[in-house]
C-alpha cells in the first residue's frame, strides 16, 4: 500500500514538473500563438485583441496556475486553432497511438525473446557472424526509412494495404488494425534487433557462471538449466529495457505516423507545436509523461515478482 501511494505521488509530481517545463519552454522559444493564427494578415490591434481573448496577455505564473486548476478539474481547455475542446481532439488520436504502440510492443516481445534465446546457445559459427551482421543492420536503419520501404513494398506495389487510406478505427476496426500492423512492423524491427541482442548477451553471460556449470555437471540438461535458472537471472535487465522501449515507442511513432499517414498523437503533437497551439501540446505532453512513468512502474512490479530481493528493497 505504502509502495503504491509512493508510486502515485511520483506519477503526479512527474506530470506536474513536465507540464511546467513544457509551459516554460514555450515561453522561451520564439513564435506567438496569436501571430500564428492571424498570419500575414495580422495587425497590431488584431493581435492585441486576440491575445486578450485567449488570455495570453496575463503573466506566465497565472496562466500556468489557471491551466493546472483546469487540469485537476478535468478540463484540458480549448484548442486555439480548432476552437474545439482539447480532449475531443486528442481522444481519437490517443486510441490510434495506443494501439500502434501495443501492436509494436507485442511484435517486439513475441519475436525478440525467442530469437534471443535461440541465438544465445550458439557459439561463434559462420551463421552467428551472419546473424550479428543482420542484427547490426536492423538496429542501424531508422524506423522512418523502414517505414518508407514497407509502405512502398506492401502499400504501393503489393497493395496488401492502401498507403494513405487509414480506415476510421470506430467503423473498420479490423481494417485499421491491419494498416497499423505494417506501421508497427516498421517501429519494431530496430527494437527487435536490440532486444534480441541484449537477451542473447545476458543469457550467454549467465551460462558461463559457476552455478550453471555446477547444475549441468550434476546431470541437468542445458534446456532445463536455461529455463529453470538462467532465464530468471537474465530477464530483469531485458524487462527494464522493454519498459524503456514501451516509453520510447511513442517517440518513434511520431515519424512512423507521418510516413504511414496515420492520424496519431505524435503527428498531431508535431503539428500543434509548429502552430503554437499550447493547450493541445500541454495535454499531449502530460499524457506522454503519464505513459512513460506508467511503463517504468510496470517494469518495476514485474521485476519484483521475478526477483524477491528487489521486492524487499522496494518496501524498505
Amino acid at each position: 500500500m505504502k509502495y503504491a501511494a509512493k508510486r502515485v505521488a511520483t506519477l503526479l509530481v512527474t506530470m506536474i514538473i513536465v507540464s511546467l517545463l513544457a509551459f516554460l519552454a514555450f515561453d522561451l522559444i520564439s513564435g506567438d500563438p496569436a501571430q500564428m493564427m492571424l498570419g500575414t494578415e495580422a495587425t497590431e490591434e488584431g493581435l492585441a485583441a486576440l491575445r486578450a481573448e485567449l488570455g495570453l496577455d496575463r503573466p506566465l505564473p497565472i496562466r500556468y496556475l489557471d491551466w493546472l486548476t483546469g487540469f485537476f478539474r478535468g478540463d484540458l481547455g480549448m484548442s486555439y486553432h480548432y476552437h474545439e475542446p482539447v480532449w475531443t481532439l486528442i481522444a481519437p488520436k490517443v486510441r490510434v497511438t495506443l494501439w500502434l504502440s501495443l501492436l509494436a510492443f507485442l511484435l517486439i516481445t513475441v519475436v525478440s525473446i525467442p530469437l534471443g534465446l535461440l541465438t544465445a546457445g550458439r557459439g561463434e559459427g559462420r551463421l552467428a557472424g551472419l546473424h550479428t551482421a543482420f542484427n547490426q543492420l536492423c538496429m542501424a536503419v531508422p524506423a522512418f526509412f523502414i517505414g518508407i520501404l514497407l509502405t512502398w513494398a506492401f502499400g504501393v506495389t503489393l497493395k496488401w494495404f492502401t498507403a494513405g487510406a487509414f480506415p476510421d478505427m470506430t467503423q473498420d476496426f479490423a481494417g485499421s488494425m491491419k494498416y497499423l500492423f505494417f506501421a508497427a512492423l516498421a517501429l519494431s524491427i530496430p527494437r527487435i534487433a536490440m532486444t534480441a541482442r541484449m537477451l542473447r548477451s545476458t543469457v550467454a553471460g549467465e551460462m558461463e557462471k559457476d552455478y550453471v556449470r555446477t547444475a549441468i555437471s550434476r546431470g541437468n540438461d542445458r534446456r532445463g538449466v536455461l529455463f529453470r535458472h538462467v532465464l530468471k537471472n537474465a530477464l530483469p535487465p531485458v524487462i527494464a529495457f522493454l519498459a524503456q522501449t514501451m516509453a520510447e515507442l511513442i517517440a518513434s511513432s511520431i515519424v512512423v505516423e507521418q510516413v504511414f499517414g496515420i492520424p496519431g498523437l505524435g503527428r498531431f503533437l508535431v503539428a500543434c507545436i509548429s502552430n503554437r497551439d499550447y493547450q493541445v501540446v500541454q495535454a499531449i505532453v502530460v499524457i506522454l509523461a503519464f505513459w512513460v512513468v506508467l511503463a517504468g512502474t510496470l517494469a518495476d512490479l514485474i521485476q519484483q515478482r521475478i526477483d524477491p530481493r528487489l521486492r524487499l528493497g522496494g518496501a524498505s
Partner: protein
Amino acid sequence: MNTRRLVAGLLSAALMATLMSGCGGTAEQTAAPTQQGEEPRPNEITVAIAQDLDDSLDPHKTVAAGTKEIMFNVFEGLVKPTPDGNLVPAVAESYELSEDGTVYTFTLRDGVKFHNGATVTAEDVVYSFDRCADITGGSSLVEALSVVTDVTAVDEKTVAITIAAPDNEFFASLTLAILPKGYEDQDTAPVGTGPFRYVSRAAQDNIVLERFDDYWGEPAKVEKVTLKVIENADSLVMSLQSGAVDLCAKLTSTQVAQLGDEFYVAEGTMNLVQALYLNHAVAPFDDLKVRQALCYAIDKQQAIDIACDGYGTPLGSSMYPGFGKYFLPELTNYYPHDVEKAKALLAEAGYPEGFDMTITAPSNYSYHVDVAQVLVEQLKAVGINAKIELVEWATWLSDVYSGRQFQATVVGLDASTMTARALLSRFESTAKRNFINYNSETYDALYAQAQATIDDAEQTELYKALERELTENAANVYIQDTANLVAVRKGLEGVVFYPIYVLDLSNVGWTE
C-alpha cells in the same frame, strides 16, 4: 539438442503468427480491387492537402490561406470570382450603383438556400455584414469592409450597402461570405450557400464535404470530397500511387516526376509574388545601388530552372500575370542578369569586396528554401557572401513579419482579394503590413492618388506606375510566380485555376 528444437519451435510459432496476420491482409486486399473493377466507381474523390484546415472554419475569422482555399467551395458572397478574374453575381442576382457611387443596391437571387435548409433573406445579408464589423483581428477582407457606413434591408429581397466614398475596388470585397442569421457554430460546423456543404473534420486527418443538392447554380459533379491531410512529401507521392488519393495540388517538380502513368499534371500558378524581400531599414539594403546590384546579380530563370525544374513564371514587380490588366510584362527583365554591372554598382556603393548577409527562409516551404539556396550561389559570383537561416513559420511570422528583424527573406506574398490594392498597399510607408520598411515618397504619393481615383482606367494606370516605381527603385529582388502543379488521376476532369488562392472542386468529376 532438445533446447534448440524447442526454441526453434517457439521462434517459428512467432514467425507464423507474424506471417499469418500479414497473409490475412493479402486475402482481403486482393479481393477489393476486383470488386472495384466490377462495380461502378463511387462518385467521390479524395484530395490530398499538405496542411490541415487548423483554423476557425468561420469564413469571417479564417485567416489561413489553405483554409480559405478549400472553404471557397462552401461559402459564397453576394458576388463571387470566376477563373478569368471577373466577379459575377452569386447570392445576389443583380445590383445597381447610385449616381454618386456610394450606394450599392443588391437584389437577391430567388431560392438560394443555406446548407441548413433555410432560404437566404435580406436579413441574413445585413447580419453577415454587421457581424464582420464586430470581429477583431479578422482577415483583410473584413478590414476592407471598414468603409461600409450602412447596410439596410430595403425589403425581403433587397439590400442597400452604403460606403463612405466612391471606391472602384470595393466591389471585390463583396465576396464576403453570407451566413444564416443567428447561427452560432460557424467556428466548427460552418453553414454557407456554396456547392458543397461541410460534413466533418478530424484534426490532422481529414475533412469531408458533400454535394449540396439544393444549390442554386450548376451542381457539383461529385457527391463527396474527402480532403486528406498528408504533410510528408514521400507519403504524399505513395498515397497517390497506391490509389488512396485522386488529386493533389501544389506538388513539387520532384514529386511530379515520381507519379507514374495513372496521373496527368495540370499546371497553373500559385498566384503569389516570390521574391528576395529586403529590409530597407537595415544597411546596406537602404542603398539603392546595393539593391540594384542584387537585382543584376540574380538570374531568376536559372533559379527557376534549378530549384523548380523550370516550372514557374519570372516576375519583375509585385504583380503576377493572373491579374491581367495590371500586369506589366516589360518589367520582368528590367534587370537582366549582369555580373559585371552588379560588381560595378557594389563598388560605387562602397562595397567593392562585397559583404556578408543573412537570408531568412521558412523551413516548411521547400520552394522558398530551394530558391534561396540557388540565390546564395548566384550572389557568390559578385562577392556577396550570403548564408541561409531556416526558421519555423511561427518564428518567421513573429520575428521577420511582425518584428521586422531580418536582412532579407525569401517568401511569397499573395493577394487576399482580386484587386491590385491587395498586392500593392503593403509598400505604402505607413502600412501595417509593410514589413520590408519600404519608404518612398513617390510611392506614397502615387498610392494616395490611386486610392482617390474613381475612374477605372486612370486607376489602373496609377497602379502600373506603382509597380514601375517598385521595380525602378529595386524594392525587392523579384523572382517568380511559383507554378502550381496539380496531379490528377486519369479519368478525372475539370481542374480550373483562378487568379486567387482557391481550389474549386465543383467542376471536378469523373469522365465515364
